């Protein structure tokens, strides 16, 4: 695991909040005893992936990739067991994926650079994308949360400098 304090500051709270959200709000067991955050060169995207950007002091792209079975379980819990009409199924599934990503990021994001705000963009769904690859000074961090209903992949893509330990952000 290649982490430093800024990596942790940005992604670790999101991973932790995802775990507590799944366990406490959705009543879904998380199977990993510990959830690692790894730096990679390429990240494979799931068919159902939501992307949210952050703005302000820190500008990164965050993605949430869901297995289909997990989405179905999340929809069931979100809707309190209410049967979803077939003609609304896709829209409900998409809005649940987006709302969960939006809520978790909103709940957990902290600004490692101080008290100033980090804004987040509205969530968007990525369709038919397969992967993204590190280029030049970018950094890709990934984390996989395993459940009985499939996996939830989290990733953060940003400039490498963001993750440099000794960068003096105050001079920016």
């Amino acid at each position, binding site marked *: 695991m290649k982490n430093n304090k800024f990596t942790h500051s940005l992604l670790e709270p999101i991973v932790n909040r995802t775990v507590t*959200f799944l366990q406490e*709000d959705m009543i879904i067991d998380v199977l990993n005893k510990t959830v690692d955050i790894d730096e990679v060169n390429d990240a494979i995207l799931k068919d159902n992936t939501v992307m949210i950007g*952050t703005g302000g002091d820190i500008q990164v792209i965050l993605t949430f990739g869901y297995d289909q079975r997990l989405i179905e379980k999340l*929809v069931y819990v*979100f*809707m*309190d067991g*209410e049967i979803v009409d077939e003609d*609304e199924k896709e*829209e*409900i599934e998409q*809005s*649940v994926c*987006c*709302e969960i990503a*939006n*809520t978790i*990021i*909103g*709940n957990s*994001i902290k600004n490692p650079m101080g008290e100033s*705000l*980090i*804004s*987040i963009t*509205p969530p968007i769904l990525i369709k038919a994308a397969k992967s993204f690859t590190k280029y030049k000074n970018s950094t890709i961090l990934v984390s996989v949360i395993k459940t009985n209903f499939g996996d939830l992949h989290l990733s953060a893509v940003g400039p490498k400098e963001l993750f440099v330990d000794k960068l003096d952000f105050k001079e920016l």
Partner: protein
Amino acid sequence: MLKVMVVDDALVIRKNLTRFFTSLGHEVVAEAGTGVEAISKIQEIKDIDLITMDVTMPEMDGIEATKQICELNKDVKIVMITSHGQEELVSKALKAGAKNFVLKPITQEKVEQTIGVLFPEFASKEDEDTL
């Protein structure tokens, strides 16, 4: 019983809020997926006590919709539905006339507490004890 309009572009949020309000004994008289649709509905249905308003929506966001609705109907109370990371937008919405905001994830308890703050006559016994 309060008459409520739920404004959110996410269908699942509209459905959840409708379920929460209904189970608390209130009536959702209208739903809207955009700010434009919300303004159209407030002109059709005058008798609305409370609106829950998403901040970011297509066509017209929740801030502009709040501003226009407050000009059309000075009695209606608007509550923003938001998440952290949108504090600046919420601040603008409050200046535009919104009365309160609820942070996601939305639960029935949060909805009930907010109703209790804005409409003390509908506060639950537990909320009354804490007010």
